[in-house]
């Protein structure tokens, strides 16, 4: 076991920090409060991701033949940490490099790869994730949006909800029902958002402008070639996607950075001398570092080519614990951060509430840990 970063890994992190310092606008911390899905940040992200791509820093962990540099998952982790700590200037495009791209690479047809990957690796694409429905949140397999085969096309009707980025996305990674079998009857369609019959309505949210939406599909015609994988293969593909997504956002890193920033501010105000505040800060730091190490353990296994299963749920829940404790610390000891005094901390707090909800609720992670890590018998359904 060696917990030291290699020189190469440290140099890569420094390169990212230098790039961020040279590229982000001076008022970035205030600007980033628009939220990762806002029109302003989405627009800026196209410029930013284009520059990242020019520097070879957008998809360095992808294989060379598809636009990457073949760097290992440690580099992917360092990249994700530095971007998330910076307030995620890639906006919604972080999803592209975290899981949309890797999923297309693994399951996509040659035509799909040729159509979608260049825009992702060029920093121009924005995807949305058509998963949740009004009656199907954590119980995703109950989804009802129906894709009915009609010759060479599917006709899609139904509704998605709480869909991030849908307002400005160019393509939807749409999960829909092609037969009545609960899990084997679900398929994935890659649907351009300008297809006739799609209506998007923004939902006001706690996490920033433009973040979540309702998406209505009214007899939307989608060619069969737009199906990802086989009919009925969605559950397997989603499992692969979510494994990447669950580990994809290193929220522990921003939580720790926000904690350090809060402590610095409290020290400057002479409010970090008492035992109570110091003890609370240390508890939050311990949870951040526990989540970091749980995540690193999985990254290490990915580096060795091992299949990652339920263990990512454990790292994910550790991150939820950390995020929550840091948010609670700041609310208690630096309440002005939630007003306009400290844009960086406000940005963190605004996004923190997502940690236990998006990409599979925290309680679902606990169910997975119970069944698949602890091997407890499953609950009756």
């Amino acid at each position, binding site marked *: 076991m060696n917990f030291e970063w290699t020189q190469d890994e440290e140099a890569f992190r420094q390169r990212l920090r230098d790039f961020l310092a040279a590229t982000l606008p001076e008022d970035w911390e205030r600007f980033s409060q628009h939220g990762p899905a806002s029109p302003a940040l989405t627009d800026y992200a196209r410029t930013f991701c284009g520059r990242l791509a020019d520097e070879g820093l957008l998809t360095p962990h992808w294989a060379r033949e598809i636009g990457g540099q073949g760097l290992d998952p440690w580099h992917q982790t360092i990249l994700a940490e530095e971007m998330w700590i910076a307030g995620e200037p890639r906006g919604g495009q972080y999803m592209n490099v975290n899981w949309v791209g890797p999923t297309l690479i693994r399951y996509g047809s040659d035509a799909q790869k040729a159509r979608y990957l260049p825009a992702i690796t060029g920093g121009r694409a924005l995807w949305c994730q058509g998963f949740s429905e009004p009656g199907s949140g954590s119980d995703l397999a109950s989804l009802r949006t129906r894709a009915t085969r009609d010759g060479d096309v599917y006709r899609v009707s139904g509704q998605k909800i709480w869909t991030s980025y849908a307002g400005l996305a160019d393509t939807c990674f749409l999960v829909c029902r092609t037969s009545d079998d609960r899990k084997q009857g679900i398929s994935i369609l890659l649907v351009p958002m300008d297809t006739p019959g799609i209506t998007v309505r923004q939902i006001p949210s706690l996490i920033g402008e433009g973040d979540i939406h309702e998406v209505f599909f009214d007899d939307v015609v989608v060619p069969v070639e737009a199906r990802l994988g086989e009919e009925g293969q969605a559950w397997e593909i989603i499992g692969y996607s979510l494994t990447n997504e669950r580990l994809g956002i290193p929220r522990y890193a921003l939580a720790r950075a926000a904690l350090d920033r809060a402590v610095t501010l409290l020290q400057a105000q002479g409010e970090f001398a008492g035992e109570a505040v110091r003890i609370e800060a240390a508890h939050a730091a311990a949870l951040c570092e526990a989540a970091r190490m749980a995540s690193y353990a999985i990254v290490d296994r990915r580096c060795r080519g091992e299949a990652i299963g339920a263990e990512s749920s454990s790292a994910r829940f550790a991150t939820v614990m950390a995020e929550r404790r840091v948010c609670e610390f700041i609310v208690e000891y630096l309440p002005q951060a939630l007003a306009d005094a400290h844009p960086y901390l406000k940005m963190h707090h605004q996004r923190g509430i997502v940690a236990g909800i998006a990409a599979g609720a925290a309680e679902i992670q606990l169910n997975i840990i119970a069944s698949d890590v602890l091997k407890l018998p499953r*609950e009756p359904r």
Partner: protein
Amino acid sequence: MNLSLTDDQIAILDAIDTLTRPYAGATLHEAGFALTSEALDRDLAEGGFLDIGFDPDLGAISAALVVERLARLPQTVEAAASALIRPLLGDATPRPLCLVEEDKTHRPVRFLAPGATVLLVGPDRVRSFVAGPEHVRAEPEALYAYPMGNLIAQPDDRTDHSVSADDIRTRWRVALAAEAAGLLAAALDSTATYVTDRQQFGRPLATFQALRHRLAEAQVRANGLYWLAMKAASTLDAGDAALAALHAQESARTSVYDFHQFLGAMGMTLEHPLHLWTYRLKALIGDLGGRGGQALAAADALWG
């Protein structure tokens, strides 16, 4: 960053598993609060497993791996202090090694018995002596799963060690975290097995979400603790060690009562071995000022 075990570490852990296998069949329900085994202690010492920390090529990380693995056994062996702190004192230091905070000598001490080395750790100095019968009063009725003794007297002649008290405290925290990681993992395993086998209302207890989620949270804590402990053993950084020890004591506090609760009435008995791990965790919760002490040490190290 490379979190794989080295070939040497794999070989050491395999050897421990082989050595300890004959002890796995010990009768547990007559163990009382603490299950000790002189034979196991002797085998481990003769095999050199408790001296691994003296080898600079293997280092404290390998010693911590040994401590974590041994803590999973129902038998309690004085491994943590010997494996991680004795390398700073010299291999002539007799075992068991008993850690005592200089200003808390009134507390019961793990493994304290005549012949043991008592290490007195003060704010700025580290001293030791070998306990004689006149210094020790055994505590056979203590509610801990370690053999405990009280320090009732000290000799005038104590050895001063030219080691930093801060370095000793850092390694103490690493030792505590590594041992707690093994104890927590084993206690969780034991509880998970029980609630899987035990049927109520026509189904296994483990199928009730009220238990499942709390056990899953314990798994998250145990996993995080393992990695924090190993990182701290690797870096021997004061901040890493304090965070690991804080997570250990906090996780012990949140998990121990849950585990016994989930065993129901069986959780009140000495017939089930769960206490052999949980009542060791209880003994670790108060070390070095408890959670508050670790948290303040962590805050000092991280933020000044």
